[in-house]
């Protein structure tokens, strides 16, 4: 008999997400639904406003990748006004954005995702001396020396955690799935994970400062305006640029000496799951069969991002190329044509009867509620509407976006830099490329990207310093608002840390007429579409074996691998069978 699991709230994410999964008698997930349970209506709020103000409001779509929404929104307006920003503005925006990537990926891995791999309780029984040796081993795989390898340091951290556990109240670590059979790290490896978790808390504060240097604050920076940026005094001050660089170098050190080794460690220990697909590698490459645990759709899209020269939008060279790879087949790559993007609301709590391009998009709530049940659980009406997230469709297919998509598209495009980072990672870890098409691979791709980003940003800081030193202080391109804002439309299409992010704006008489944002988590967390096809979260859960249905560790691990960010996307799940036994997940593991 199948069992129905409801996980709500999904914690350690941004926003409100609910997952419902159906498992068979072998504890394998046979069906899954992803729903967002919160709606704010920011697109509606933007209507009628001055296009120059959109960025400030649109940024609040998300408090995590806030700077990205800000920039996309401003770019949509600049695209509409046909403005090309000056060099300083381009570099500063890249730096603000790049700082976000490094910061956000690090926080995601350690504070939102690591506890799905790392069993905190198991770390208590680690041998600190062996832990130090273990840390050296994984750092060596990455070709680095470990961030910490002192036996004493590991011992101190272990004592601290032990004390915390002993006093009975675990605070945010309470009720975790500790002891679950699908935790695979050794006690020593777990202790490394816990140690880095704590150190990363500190490092991330410094990384956030990078964004504040040119953005004013983090979260919600404030220095980007239509036409350029405002932070002239920070650009013309060499001490400021040097400060940015030293924060970057410190962050980069942690990325290389802790983050990468930890991902090698987790990737190796969980590699079985990454490659447990029944499909052969050749089949996978031919787009047949699914990847390892959590592989999901295997269609990957990237709009591309980080302009490397000062030609206008969508003409400049990019750090991350744009493209689409279907079925995991990296021998081919298709161009992205934004005209082929549409949003469908068949299973979303909005009015509408056909997929619409974002320029035509509507956001009219039509909430039909949850099913009422007597056991204290209200299920999603999965046959009908069940989420506040719309279902984006590209060229009438469902696609996944995110760091993995960027790396896959980069490799498929034969981008030199990306291919080098990806192959080097796989070679050093002695991992087959197939591991990428999985939950573990999604996590690895994020780490590879962070490493690449922390290197390339050094070039950008130097470029900015050189440009300012040469006397170029231009930060803004003038435009005649009255002329350019009469009747126009534009789009800001690029990448957020979580994947392809697009803002589309239509403007008339100096005011916003329509505004639609299609965000990464909309692509990934979306419900079924009009053809009943699953979104990326849903598809990635199918076939996953759950060790203990009372502790849906595998579900949250896979969902977390996407780095959900739901405030901007808003949706969740339902059941398909009628005769499902309700399995309430309520056993807590007390330690």
């Amino acid at each position, binding site marked *: 008999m199948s069992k129905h699991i*409801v*996980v*709500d*709230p999904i*914690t*350690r*994410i941004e*926003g409100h997400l609910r997952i419902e999964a159906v498992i068979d008698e072998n504890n394998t997930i046979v069906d899954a639904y992803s729903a967002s349970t*919160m*709606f*704010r*209506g*920011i697109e*509606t709020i933007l209507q009628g*406003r001055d296009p*120059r*103000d959109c960025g*400030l*409001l649109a940024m609040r779509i*998300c408090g995590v990748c*806030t700077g990205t929404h800000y920039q996309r929104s401003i770019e949509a307006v600049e695209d509409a006004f046909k403005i090309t920003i000056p060099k300083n503005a381009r570099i500063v925006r890249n730096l603000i954005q790049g700082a976000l990537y490094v910061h956000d990926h690090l926080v995601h891995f350690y*504070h939102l995702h690591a*506890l799905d791999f790392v069993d905190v309780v198991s770390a208590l029984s680690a041998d600190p001396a062996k832990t130090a040796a273990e840390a050296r081993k994984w750092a060596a795989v990455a070709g680095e020396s470990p961030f910490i390898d002192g036996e004493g340091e590991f011992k*101190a951290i272990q004592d*601290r955690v032990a*004390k*915390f556990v002993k006093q009975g*109240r675990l*605070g*945010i*670590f309470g*009720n975790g799935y500790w002891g679950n059979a699908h935790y695979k790290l050794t006690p020593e490896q777990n202790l490394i994970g816990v140690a880095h978790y704590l150190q990363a*808390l500190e490092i*991330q*504060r410094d990384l956030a*400062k990078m*964004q504040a240097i040119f*953005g*004013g*604050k983090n*979260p919600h920076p404030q*220095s980007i*305006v239509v036409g*350029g940026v*405002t932070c*002239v*005094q920070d650009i013309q001050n060499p001490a400021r640029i040097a400060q940015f660089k030293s924060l970057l170098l410190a962050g980069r050190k942690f990325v290389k000496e802790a983050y990468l080794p930890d991902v090698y460690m987790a990737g190796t220990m969980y590699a079985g799951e990454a490659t447990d697909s029944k499909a052969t590698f050749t089949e996978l490459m031919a787009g047949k069969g699914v990847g390892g645990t959590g592989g999901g759709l295997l269609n990957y899209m990237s709009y591309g991002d980080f302009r490397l020269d000062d030609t206008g939008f969508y003409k400049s060279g990019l750090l991350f190329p744009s493209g689409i790879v279907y079925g995991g087949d990296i021998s081919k790559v298709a161009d992205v044509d934004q005209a082929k993007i549409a949003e469908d609301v068949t299973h979303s709590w909005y009015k509408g009867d056909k997929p619409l391009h974002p320029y035509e998009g509507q956001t009219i*709530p039509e*909430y039909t509620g949850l099913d009422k049940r007597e056991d204290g659980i*209200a299920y999603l009406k999965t046959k009908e509407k069940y989420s506040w997230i719309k279902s984006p469709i590209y060229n009438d297919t469902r696609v996944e976006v995110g760091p993995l998509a960027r790396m896959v598209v980069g490799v498929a495009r034969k981008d030199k830099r990306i291919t080098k980072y990806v192959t080097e990672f796989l070679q050093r870890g002695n991992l087959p490329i197939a591991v990428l098409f999985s939950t573990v691979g999604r996590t690895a791709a994020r780490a590879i990207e962070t490493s690449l980003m922390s290197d390339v940003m050094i070039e950008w800081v130097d470029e900015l310093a050189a440009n300012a030193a040469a006397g170029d*202080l*231009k*930060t803004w391109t003038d435009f*005649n*608002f*009255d002329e350019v804002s009469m009747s126009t439309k534009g789009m800001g299409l690029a990448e957020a840390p979580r994947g392809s992010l697009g803002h589309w704006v239509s403007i008339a008489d100096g005011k916003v007429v329509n505004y639609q944002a299609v965000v990464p988590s909309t692509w990934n967390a979306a419900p079924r579409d009009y053809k009943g096809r699953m979104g990326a979260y849903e598809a990635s859960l199918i076939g996953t074996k759950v060790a203990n249905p009372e502790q*849906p560790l595998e579900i949250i691990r896979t969902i977390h691998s996407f780095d959900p960010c739901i405030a901007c996307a808003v949706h969740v799940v339902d059941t398909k069978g009628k005769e499902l036994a309700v399995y309430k*997940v*309520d056993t807590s*593991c007390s330690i």
Partner: protein
Amino acid sequence: MSDKIEAVKKLFTSKSSRVETNKGDTYYQDLFAKCEARLNEMRAQTPANRLDFSELLEENGIDRREFMKWASATTAMLMLPPMFTPLVADAAVMMNRAPVIWLELQDCAGNSEALLRADGPKIDEIVLDIISLEYHETLQAAAGFQAEKQLDEAMETFKGKYLLFVEGSIPMGMNGQYGTIGAAGETFHDHLMRCSENAAAIVAVGACATFGGIPAASPNPTGAVGVMNVVKNKPIINIPACPANPANMVGVILHYLLTGQIPELDSLLRPKFAFGYRIHDNCERRAHFDAGEYVEEWGDKGAQNNFCLYKMGCKGPMTFNNCSIVRYNEGINWPIGVGRGCIGCSEPDFWDKYAYERPMADAKIKAPTGGVEKTVDEFGLGMLTAVGIGIGIHAAASAVAGKREKSGESHE
């Protein structure tokens, strides 16, 4: 004309906050005794977690001097005289006596992110060691039913004692169904009511939880409101701004621990220690404002020389907040520092009133009438009208100087 300029200048430079920073020796001696008693009481209590703070400081390589430096800065921030410094230090040591439950409603997690960037005591100590953070969706390990159970247990264990932090607004439209949480699909409204019932006090953090924030911006599609609109008969402290400054979050907890009371609040329930004066009063570009030197367009000579941003839409003169003093991300920068101006994010309805790229002259904001309190609030009223005058004057002055009248609106 020059008379008027003088009048406006005087207004802008007057002691605006009317926060009584010196209430006299008797007052402070009284308060000191009260705080001492309170701290002794706390000391006798069983903490939520039994950690030795001094040991932790030592383990983290923070020496006593460094800690006391932090305590004295915090004392100043709380607008207390230096003699309170040892008490503030003691209160910090007992942060684990204040269990915190943190709810996320109609939010963007910006405040949780901001909390993660808290300075002062290092964040890992705050999270792991000092504050007893019992429930926080963005950070906690548990999910689903285990998370719900964690919340229920915490509310039971710390009945009447926990501080309930709320991030995000409450959608009231459609019977609250624009936001639900948990397996039962409880609405945010019901969730908040249930969790606030046994809270000692509620701390609303960020523009959304305090005044409705962005979801409440016109036309407010979901009927979003702030906590104080739905929760009655409970002490509520509002820490607005978008996001709230983590220094103020820590300040409120410390104040509560120290005095057992919520801090002195203005009519909008904002602690006066943080929201008792305007951005403009302590702005680093203030001298340029007084001298009539403005940035006239992004990236111009004025911008390169850090002139006043008033004409580029800075709302510092009508915004009560302390970010001109504490700044953000450990003091690295702040919106005016970065040349963009203040958008008034600690004020109610700022999305509809202030958050745009033009000065107030174009805003046609009516001054509020009636029911306005004295002190800070009275001044707020004064400002709204006075700024109208001020803008007129500056606009006229620029016209005389042959510059364009309304920044951002016309470009020749």
